[in-house]
């Protein structure tokens, strides 16, 4: 079964709730809950269409960034235990995995993005401790990490703004 699509069905459900159920509701709590349901249905429809590609894009963007951090951490003195620990963690994180080939579910992609974002958190915490040394490489890397943070929010806006903005009370 290809038609109707999941998104078709969600839109049909949303429309039915809006035209059949909402007009007969009188309690504030019920009307509030239904308003929120409508917003979330539109959000889910967007996630069905966009979440997979967004996670793939996220992985493609963050892996080279973490490789940069690993190179930076690896270039610090040998006795720097914190740098060594981060290098080891990032090496493990960036290692090729069988799970990353072939068809991948959204859950599998999300699992990888979660692990990579933990790597970004660890990287930020590490690079922040190097900024006081006025090292331009640390500053450049920190800026790159911040750019990723801002980009991630821009990506997320694609599944939030069109679902909520202009569609009335949220609750």
């Amino acid at each position, binding site marked *: 079964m290809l038609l109707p699509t999941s998104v078709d069905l969600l839109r049909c459900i949303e429309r039915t709730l809006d035209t059949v159920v909402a007009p007969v509701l009188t309690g*504030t709590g019920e009307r509030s809950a239904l308003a929120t349901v409508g*917003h979330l249905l539109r959000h889910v429809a967007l996630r069905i269409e966009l979440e997979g590609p967004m996670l793939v894009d996220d992985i493609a963007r963050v892996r080279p960034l973490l490789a940069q951090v690993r190179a930076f951490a690896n270039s610090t003195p040998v006795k720097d235990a914190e740098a060594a620990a981060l290098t080891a963690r990032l090496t493990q994180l960036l290692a090729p995995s069988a799970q990353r080939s072939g068809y991948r579910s959204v859950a599998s992609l999300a699992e990888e993005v979660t692990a990579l974002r933990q790597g970004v*958190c660890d990287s930020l915490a590490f690079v922040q401790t190097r900024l006081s040394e006025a090292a331009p490489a640390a500053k450049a890397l920190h800026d790159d990490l*911040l750019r990723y*943070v801002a980009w991630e*929010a821009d990506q997320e*806006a694609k599944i939030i703004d069109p679902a909520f903005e202009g569609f009335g009370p949220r609750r």
Partner: protein
Amino acid sequence: MEMLNMDMLKQPLAAYLIHKFGPAASVVNVVKFPRGSSRETWFIEYRNAPAARIQKIVFRTDFPSGSTIPSTLEQEYFMYERLGTSAVPVAKVLWWERDPTWAARPFYVREHIEGNWSIPHYHDLDPAYDALRIEVSKEHVRKLALVHTVDWRGLGLDKRLPAPPNEAHAASAYIDMVADQLRNLRGEPIPLFVAASHWLKAQAPAAPRLSLCKGTNGLGEEVFLDSKIVAMSDWEEAAIADPASDFAFCQNLVNDVVRDGKTLWSLSQALDYYHSLSGIRVTPQAVDFYRKVQSFKMLMYTQSAAVGTHSTPNAHIRQAWTATEVAHVGKRLMIAAMGLGPPLPSSRFLELNRTMD
């Protein structure tokens, strides 16, 4: 009477009221407070006997998936109980219920205070209501001064609320407290949170003093009667902190009042008035700093909502919304504050806060 499912009770409310108030007790009305995203609030009307006067009480409990705010319900009860012995206007707590015969999850009951969270005409931009807006703002400032001068050590509040080591470290201690709360959620990693924590600490101001602070306050949080605050509600975000934080976390009650290009009331004037009452000098710069901390907090509590929604299908629909749109708006606010992205248009906030009531 609204037929609502009070699922914090294992048995019908009528049976519970008989258990508490005797065999002639009966339910008159039950209303679930439609606002509020942190916990459930229920207004109960009952009679002790068929011809007896109607009594009103308030039940407060976590959502089935927990609270959006990481402090415990028991801490909130503690705050009410302790503040009940101070000059701060709060509803008297009546009892804590955890008896597994009755409670599906713990709840507490407090007295009902006559009043309303909204103030008639407060948002009416007619010049006739400028004086009302200013007077209500002053009333709120008076109550904040009362809260901030509470002897928190004397009340033993620091037994439950972490106290910063000193005024100089008030802001960094607050940020660490929020970071601990996020860590305890065991949710997803948030790189922005790590970046923002570092950025905020780099500009943290010293506090003029360490005070009991309410957390989110102002319109929607307090009970008003005839434009006076008769009860300050929902102490789940209470902290020992910089008083500036409460001005930053205040909802709609320290707004500018401008008429024909003339500023009739402003944050600066509110802070001067506050200083005259409390002796505490809070600067607009410190308030601005804590407004950024507010965005930082949003990252944590929206993640709390995400974890709650993920943990059970019984999560409240409002938590799911908090975990999605509100979480995203929090990120955009933080990113804008850090200069990494454009500011959100004010129309977005107006939309976000529109409700069905």
